[in-house]
């Protein structure tokens, strides 16, 4: 924690069922209401009760891009957390725990243990969650805040459960606060206040809200971690927003249902993770062939097969690139964070409506289940909506051809129900009129014409999406290349490298298809040294970059243990490579979660 920039990270560790979410939520809301930035990463297991959960919340008066490298405050809700994480707590840190039940181990010099006599403070309450509320009281004191702030937050959190519940929690929290005041030292720097209250959202909520803002009227899904948050947000807000939300029997049904709704004229979207996406792929090709605009979201988790369901990875790039058989047109985009994910959805809908083809968003657990602060004024709920060449009213009655061979390749699309535009769409190859040609030996010329017509739709699409730009000093010693969710952590690593005397810059790639191959090749060929940072084992992006540009990077930093990069992992990887020790660095994940 430096005096100039407030930067504090706290972690709450315990078992599933110990109620980590509630204090996490109360603290997060407290921070953003004070106008502070935050990022929270929850390391958890695919388990409903038991196991180990570790929620890291980092808070600052500046924008935060990752969960950082160190912890200042640990709330250990069980012995397991104490045993696993105490050794990571450095000088100046505080460790809050239930002194009645948890035995601390060896503590680093300067780390302060704060045992709470929970039984005494809670009048021997049998409520197992009471230690969380006591800990919140202690936290407020450590942050140098008035108790009133917590009282308000607890009232808001528990008012639905009745006044008794509010009174009990406020009482216990006050006992914790007063106890801390008498027995422990607050952090030297009190929690600052930002310019204006901020908002808080997860990446999944941002994706869902992006859909709502884009005018999605049909959302369907099959639950799958870590994408389920999109379904939950949609289901919760569906009635207010006039969005139809369906939970379907499987992801095959999801993709096909979304295409049915989209063909009929509604903007339709669905989200899943890698396994569900695998089931959707045949239908994605159908959307390509029938020329139906639909948005599919793949929130990656560690694979293959069921993999590590609650851990992050960037391992689905080639699955997405290879989704469905045959050549067909689609957009593929990997947003950088929650706000970018939000903005990407309306942009992508406009693109797919214009080109009449599927669009695929690659997110991952890190973005989707990460909690971000956001400036509400930066969230544009009324983006531009462009439906492309969509016919929604009967005007002409003669000679309509659904797949008319036009110069742009885009054929005006009439929605079913209109008089005068009756047509058939087909997954088989078809002619301009939608009549099947797939089985006709005599029609190779028609087949070629239709393939080329569809291809033309995206021939110049690269001009419709922003080219990536180098961020940081132009003549840096090293250029770090990332895609999607690694943007924030790489940016922070670049700042840390500067402190160590190494100038680095970042080329963050967002648009995978269309790919700004020329611009990217131009930038990289001028770089002194290039290192690709990605969250997978085989260097999926490195291979894609090579296939599209012929460019091979000098080095690689790859992580595939399920946990996301921390800034120092990248810093160390860069330093080792600059020292010529290796060109392939795999960081070691210190915290055994």
């Amino acid at each position, binding site marked *: 924690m430096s005096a100039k920039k407030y930067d504090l990270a706290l972690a709450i560790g315990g078992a599933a069922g110990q109620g980590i979410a509630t204090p996490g939520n109360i603290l997060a809301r407290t921070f953003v209401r004070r106008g502070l930035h935050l990022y929270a990463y929850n390391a958890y297991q695919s388990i409903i009760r038991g196991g180990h959960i570790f929620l890291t919340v980092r808070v600052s008066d500046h924008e935060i891009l990752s969960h950082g490298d160190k912890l200042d405050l640990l709330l250990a809700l069980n012995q397991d957390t104490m045993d696993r994480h105490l050794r990571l707590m450095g000088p100046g840190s505080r460790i809050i725990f239930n002194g009645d039940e948890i035995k601390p181990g060896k503590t680093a010099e300067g780390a302060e243990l704060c045992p709470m006599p929970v039984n005494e403070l809670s009048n021997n309450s049998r409520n197992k969650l009471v230690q969380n509320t006591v800990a919140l009281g202690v936290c407020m004191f450590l942050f140098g805040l008035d108790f009133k702030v917590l009282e308000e937050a607890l009232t808001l959190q528990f008012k639905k459960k009745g006044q008794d519940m509010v009174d009990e929690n406020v009482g216990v929290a006050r006992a914790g606060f007063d106890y801390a005041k008498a027995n422990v030292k607050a952090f030297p720097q009190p929690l600052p206040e930002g310019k204006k209250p901020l908002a808080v959202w997860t990446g999944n909520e941002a994706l869902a809200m992006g859909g709502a803002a884009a005018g999605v009227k049909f959302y369907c899904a099959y639950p799958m971690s870590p994408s389920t948050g999109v379904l939950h947000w949609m289901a919760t807000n569906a009635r207010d927003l*006039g969005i139809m939300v369906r939970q379907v029997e499987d992801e095959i049904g999801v993709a096909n249902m979304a*295409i049915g*709704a989209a063909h009929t*004229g509604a903007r339709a979207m669905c989200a899943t993770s890698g396994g569900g996406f695998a089931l959707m792929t045949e239908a994605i090709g159908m959307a390509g062939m029938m020329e139906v605009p639909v948005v599919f979201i793949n929130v990656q988790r560690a694979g293959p097969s069921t993999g590590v369901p609650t851990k992050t990875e960037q391992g689905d790039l080639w699955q997405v690139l290879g989704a469905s058989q045959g050549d067909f047109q689609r957009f593929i985009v990997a947003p950088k964070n929650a706000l970018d994910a939000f903005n990407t959805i309306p942009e992508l809908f406009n693109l797919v409506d214009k080109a009449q083809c599927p669009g695929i968003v690659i997110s991952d657990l890190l973005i989707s289940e990460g909690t971000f602060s*956001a400036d509400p004024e930066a*969230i544009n709920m009324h983006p531009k909506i462009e439906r492309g060449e969509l016919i929604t009213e009967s005007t002409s009655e003669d000679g309509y051809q659904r797949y008319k061979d036009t110069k742009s390749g885009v054929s005006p699309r009439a929605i079913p129900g209109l008089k005068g535009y009756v047509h*058939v769409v087909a*997954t088989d190859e078809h002619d301009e009129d939608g009549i*099947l040609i797939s089985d006709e030996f005599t029609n190779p010329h028609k087949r070629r014409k239709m393939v080329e017509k569809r291809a033309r739709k995206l021939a110049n699409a690269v001009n419709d999406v922003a080219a990536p730009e180098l961020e940081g000093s132009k003549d840096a010693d090293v250029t770090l290349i990332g895609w999607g969710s690694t943007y924030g952590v790489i940016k922070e690593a670049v700042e840390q490298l500067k402190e160590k005397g190494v100038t680095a810059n970042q080329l963050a790639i967002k648009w995978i298809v269309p790919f700004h191959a020329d611009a990217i090749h131009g930038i990289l060929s001028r770089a002194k040294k290039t290192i690709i940072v990605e969250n997978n084992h085989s260097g999926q992006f490195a291979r894609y970059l090579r296939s599209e540009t012929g460019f091979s990077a000098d080095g690689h930093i790859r992580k595939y243990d399920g946990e996301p990069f921390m800034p120092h992992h990248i810093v160390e990887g860069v330093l080792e490579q600059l020292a010529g020790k290796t060109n392939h660095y795999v960081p070691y994940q210190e915290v055994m979660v």
Partner: protein
Amino acid sequence: MSTATSVVELKPKDFKGKTDPDWCPGCGDFGVLNGLQKACAELGLQPNEIVTISGIGCSSNFPGYFNAYGMHTLHGRTLAVATGVKMANHELTVICTGGDGDGYGIGGNHFVHTARRNVDVTYLVMNNQIYGLTTGQVSPSSSIGMKTKSTPFGNIEMPVNPITSAIMNGATFVARGYSGDAKHLVDLMKKAIQHKGFSLIDIFSPCVTFNHDNTYTFFRPRIKKLEDEGHDSRDWKAACEKGLMWGDTIYTGLFLEVDRPSLDQLEPILETGGPIAHRSAPLTKEQSQKILQKMM
């Protein structure tokens, strides 16, 4: 939607599609195609009000031969796509057409759930008890003992019973037709289309090329109409009993019809405002403010 002021009464031939069927001469599917053209004409429907949706297989080429909006989708996915279409615009008449392999085999999961949800679509399954387009392999409705290219020594698997399956899965209109009895089939089709909810007509549609067991000659003496037997289509137990019969007597007709709200009738989003496909895309200021407030 429609700008026309007067509705022209159409004849069956007006529902003829842009191309002629490429089915084998004598294929049972011709009877189904002719039947639906007649049924739609007699119901006074217009081509732009109808969407026919199919999967893959001989019978799934149906939408191309029928004058209406059509979707020729992936193998087995008919009902999933149809649910999306119907829920996006519940004013459309959605008619699904396909075969037994498409509907009861690869699409079996969607069959179960579309019936359970009571999605308001009419499902015409041209059941020939064989895979025809792939040149004659066993289907989920092939009889035990049937010799096909993939079961050269005879099928050992129990066939699916579409009638009792549909009833058990919650379908609200369950019927069986025979493409060799056009008048009866047209009557069933009209009832099925008018029924609000998921309606199945399993139609014996003999494959003259690959199924030499279940031929017109096989069906003709065995088929008896439920209507001639005083069957009560509100009695699901009797429907199941009659649906299970397979031997000297095989029943056609309406096994079961029950009233249960369809999915679009139950969907709160559709209570007001018309089809979602026609709604304006942007959120209102009020809607977006409410969302943003929740994040603070």
